[in-house]
């Protein structure tokens, strides 16, 4: 039996994890193998007997069932043309405003976010027709791509959100409360983006030429006709959670059945489409759940090693002020978000950083929402910003990935401003979940 103190083992496994990651090992493998090494060094070969049990017990969670179900709901919605209907309706209602189409892409992405939980779906759906439409109307490259790239990520913050389910599960926080808590920050962020677009387009009219087509109130009202089923679905899913009628998992199943009904009504389903929906859902869910599985093991090892306590002691010894500690923690999350996908960021950073935050006297619901806002930045900052590549995929070829990175950059600052608001005024995001039934 090797005798090593927990501090050394912690450093070894964290270094191993990053080395493996840099070598291109899948995240689940890097987490798994460094956990196994950690357990072996701490408890010897006998300790490894606990590995399957730890995974089994923690994966066995009804809350987690919401992950595949919400992904399924998103995929079912994806095959309807709800995305384009939302954008058309929003652009008819906003057509008088300068930069109206860009604003419409934000609004439709936000509403789409309330129907699905992953950031890429929103960006891909809204982007694929909003971007060509804006370019056709003479919008500049940056105004045509930037807003959609950033607003597509709103689905991470606006419930249902996969980020919140995963956070809730690791942090032992109510997913329902996180969902409801994400509503106000999500809407605030959408409004801040719209205001930013308005100001920039007013200052530089070349970015977004004014639309000249005549839009009547009749057209506007008619556009709502195709949108209302999705609004009802949003109300059912979120209302059910808010009023305490059902758990997020049950709401997800209701959402799936509801979106199937919309599909049936629009006659967009056939066997091939159905198989595609289930296959894509399984790909995404399998990938996320498997990372989750080994992240659970990693979290278990860190608890065994008492890593969070050691970190807290270290920070106390450094005598950092409350603000410094908070900035440090959020800085780490932002930095990780630049290099990793958000699923890994949430699952790896939470067990390490949450104890520090709780030790400062903050609440884990608030921190979860802060992490959610931080993830908004993570998906649009290079080198690993999933939304950037998604938008590149749905844009015309002459728009380069560099153009998209630059066009999304101002929105990183809008999000940073939003983050600071909710850090300064925690009541803003804690108020609504406090009123839940």
């Amino acid at each position, binding site marked *: 039996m090797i005798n090593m103190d927990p501090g050394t083992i912690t450093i070894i496994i964290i270094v191993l994890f990053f080395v*493996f*990651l*840099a*070598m*291109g*090992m*899948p*995240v*689940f*493998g890097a987490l*798994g*193998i460094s956990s*196994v090494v950690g357990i072996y060094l701490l408890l010897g070969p006998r300790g*490894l*007997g606990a*590995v*399957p*049990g730890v*995974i*089994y017990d923690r*994966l*066995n*969670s*009804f809350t*987690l*069932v919401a992950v*595949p*179900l919400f992904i*399924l709901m998103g995929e079912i919605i994806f095959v309807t043309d709800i995305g384009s209907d939302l954008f058309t309706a929003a652009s008819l209602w906003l057509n008088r405003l300068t930069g109206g189409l860009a604003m419409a892409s934000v609004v439709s992405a936000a509403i789409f976010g309330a129907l699905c939980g992953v950031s890429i779906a929103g960006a891909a759906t809204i982007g694929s027709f909003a971007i060509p439409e804006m370019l056709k109307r003479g919008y500049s490259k940056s105004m045509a791509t930037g807003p959609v790239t950033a607003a597509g990520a709103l689905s991470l913050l606006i419930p249902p959100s996969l980020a919140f389910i995963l956070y809730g599960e690791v942090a032992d926080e109510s997913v329902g409360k996180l969902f409801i808590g994400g509503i106000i920050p999500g809407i605030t962020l959408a409004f801040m983006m719209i205001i930013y677009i308005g100001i920039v387009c007013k200052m530089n009219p070349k970015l977004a030429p004014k639309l000249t087509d005549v839009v009547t109130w009749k057209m506007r009202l008619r556009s709502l006709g195709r949108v209302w089923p999705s609004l009802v679905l949003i109300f059912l899913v979120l209302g059910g959670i808010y009023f305490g*009628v*059902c758990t997020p*998992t*049950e709401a*997800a*199943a*209701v959402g*799936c*059945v509801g979106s199937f009904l919309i599909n049936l009504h629009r006659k967009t389903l056939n066997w091939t489409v159905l198989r595609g929906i*289930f*296959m894509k*859902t*399984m*790909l995404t*869910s*399998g*990938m996320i*759940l*498997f*990372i*989750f*599985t*080994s992240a659970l093991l990693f979290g278990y090892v860190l608890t065994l090693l008492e890593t969070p306590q050691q970190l807290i002691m270290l920070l106390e010894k450094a005598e950092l002020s409350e603000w410094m500690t908070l900035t440090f923690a959020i800085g780490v999350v932002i930095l990780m978000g630049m*290099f*990793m*996908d958000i*699923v*890994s960021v949430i699952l790896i950073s939470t067990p390490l950083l949450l104890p520090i935050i709780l030790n400062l006297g903050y609440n884990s619901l608030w921190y979860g929402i802060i992490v959610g806002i931080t993830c908004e930045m993570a998906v649009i900052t290079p*080198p*690993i910003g999933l939304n950037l590549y998604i938008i590149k995929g749905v844009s015309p070829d002459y728009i380069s990935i560099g153009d998209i990175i630059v066009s999304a950059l101002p929105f990183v600052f809008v999000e940073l401003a939003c983050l600071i608001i909710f850090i300064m005024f925690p009541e803003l995001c804690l108020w609504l979940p406090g009123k839940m039934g």
Partner: protein
Amino acid sequence: MRKTLRAINLSVDTITRLAEILSEVGLAFLMIMVFREVVWRYVFKNPSIFSVELSEYLLVFITFMSAAWVLSEDRHVNMTVLVDRLPKKIRLYLDIVTSILVMVFCSVLIWKGCITVIMAYVGGYHSSSLVNFPLWISYSIIPLGTLILLLQYIIRIGNNIKMLIDLRKT
């Protein structure tokens, strides 16, 4: 020799596809079961005892049964910023090294997982709920799914070696 290799390759891929199709079916069941439960509870005021527990088992099932397929589609998330800058040959070597390391993790899961299953079977463990589900069945999902993942990793290493040989030829 070449024929046997191709046969092994094909059979592992078939098992992987089969496991994936089973997990898709599991997903459909999951949706129907949770929805059914909502209706039964709120409309008929008659909640069932098995729904929550069975959906948890199904979740474990779809997670582990789809893992090998996600690998064969190369969709397990990894960080490629650094690796992408390396020459192809080194990239292939690195992939073999990391694959072997992940296989070590898989082996631990399979080996210890099998012990857990045997213990649950011999000891006659059942879930502590009213369903009284025999636990060796649900425990066996982890070693089984991981075994398919391990087999798929062997195929992956084989493919990498083949690509390395092809690279040498050219």
